[in-house]
């Protein structure tokens, strides 16, 4: 089987801790029967508004939130029924960049320890890690001089690069990105988009991106999965979805997005050229 990741009718939610804490265990359902597959080497974007459950999908994929029902298959193995050491083995093949670069870096740790941590956890000795850290810093375009700085001294864009460096240092096969650009301003956003695509092209990873920004998604994905209140409402290639959206929700997303840039009708979209 060539599909690297498969979600089968995943329903998931959070235990609500309101009211009588332990007496009544209520579960707030966030995801309803989500199913999709990701092939090896594909770039997929999950689009949805705030609160639609995008981050929750990633938490399920990363083994952080056990679904109430349904299965998560990674490399054909059911993630949540594996013993914990095998699960860790699989999770090590996933690189994860969390949502908010301002909250995802330990503020008192030197950058080299942050970036090298996945290798350290895998039992690699520090003298080999150092070399690899310098390599990945070069890939993400950070100066070597920041190795001994702490994250507090870095700008948002640099923080995001550090997180990307950390995510790719163990040579993962899947890269999972949660809103990689939404905390950044547009010029930094463009840098990060280009960086991610060059990583995709060089390392042939499978890339799963979560975003609420269609404009960003068209650069970071070949296939779009549109999510609304925990359900998938549309799925298809970028060109298909943009040119011929099936669901009303997708249409409204596209029109509202276009309106910002002053274009008023769907007919004005021209799919032309190729991204470089």
């Amino acid at each position: 089987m060539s599909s690297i990741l498969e979600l089968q009718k995943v329903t998931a939610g959070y235990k609500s801790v309101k009211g009588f804490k332990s007496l009544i265990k209520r579960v707030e359902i966030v995801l309803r029967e989500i199913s999709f597959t990701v092939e090896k080497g594909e770039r997929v974007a999950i689009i949805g508004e705030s609160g639609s459950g995008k981050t929750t999908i990633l938490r399920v994929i990363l083994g952080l939130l056990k679904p109430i029902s349904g299965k998560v298959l990674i490399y054909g193995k059911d993630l949540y029924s594996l013993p914990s050491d095998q699960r860790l083995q699989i999770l090590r093949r996933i690189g994860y960049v969390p949502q908010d670069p301002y909250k995802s870096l330990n503020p008192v740790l030197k950058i080299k320890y942050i970036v090298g941590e996945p290798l350290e956890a895998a039992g690699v000795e520090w003298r080999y890690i150092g070399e690899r850290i310098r390599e990945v810093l070069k890939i993400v375009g950070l100066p070597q001089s920041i190795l001994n700085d702490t994250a507090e001294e870095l700008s948002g864009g640099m923080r995001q690069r550090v997180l990307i460096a950390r995510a790719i240092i163990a040579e993962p096969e899947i890269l999972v990105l949660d809103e990689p650009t939404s905390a950044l301003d547009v010029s930094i956003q463009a840098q990060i988009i280009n960086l991610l695509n060059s990583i995709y092209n060089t390392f042939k990873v499978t890339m799963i991106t979560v975003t609420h920004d269609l404009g960003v998604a068209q650069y970071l994905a070949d296939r779009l999965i549109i999510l609304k209140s925990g359900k998938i409402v549309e799925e298809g290639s970028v060109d298909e979805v943009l040119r011929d959206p099936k669901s009303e929700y997708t249409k409204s997303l596209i029109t509202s997005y276009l309106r910002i840039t002053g274009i008023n009708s769907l007919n004005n979209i021209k799919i032309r050229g190729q991204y470089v």
Partner: protein
Amino acid sequence: MPPSLPFIRLVHRNLRKYRFKIGLSITIAILVLSLVSQYIAPYPREGLGYVPVGEESRRLLPPSPQYLFGTDTLGRDLFSRVIMASRSAIIQAFSVVFLSLIIGLIVGVLAAYFKGLVELVLNYLTELFMAIPSIVIALFFRLTLEAGFHVVIISLVTTWWAWYARITYVYAKGVVELDYVVLAKLSGLSPAKIIMRHVVGVIIQPILVQAISDLGSALLEASGINFMGLGLPPGYPDWGVILYEGISEMGIIAFTRAPWLVFYPGLFILLTTLGFTLLADPLREDLDPRLRRRWKLWF
């Protein structure tokens, strides 16, 4: 990679502030005094509690060049007693705060990191111990054990650790859900390392600063226990004991008849506490800019 590295940097940043300098000078002075007092005291034996025999005329002399701080009700040189008491002050303040900090840190972090039953049990435990007044414990130990440092230290640590457990828990709770902890868990880092690096390492600074400023309160409470005669044995060089002796012998008239008996030990307690507070204050401001004053103190 010591997690306290940022703390050293924090201290370094504040070295230039006058308040910090004054606090540091006072603290260092008391520390040095506690080390050398037995050599510089003019009457070291009396300082340790020895009552000179057959010299009734020496009792309750006011300060003079020979007895700098005067003499006490038993005729001992008060200067020797007061400066030699700095050692007991340092020992009590530091060991109470240090032990409470260690216990509280461990309990608080474990409660925040391991949720569920561990959290519940540790939190109830913390609350239970917060509710016990240390005087009661001191009384209990005084009745069952010999007098000595251990009574003061144990009875204070018994309640104090719970406060550190509480603030540690509150800080740690805000950190354990953050993404860097999640990332570390995902890459399979061992819980011990995650806790040390990503939880303790991040929250330690404000807690250490709190501990420094608590040194003063610890001294005050320890002196209180000794003042009530519950801690150290009579005659021991300790500011609380000295105050206790002066006031228990003479009653309230000590304040008018022999004010030096209360003034000098009181002054030293106050100065030492002030030293710790001045030390901690700028650090706390540095960590939380909201505490910064718009106007500056006179120094």
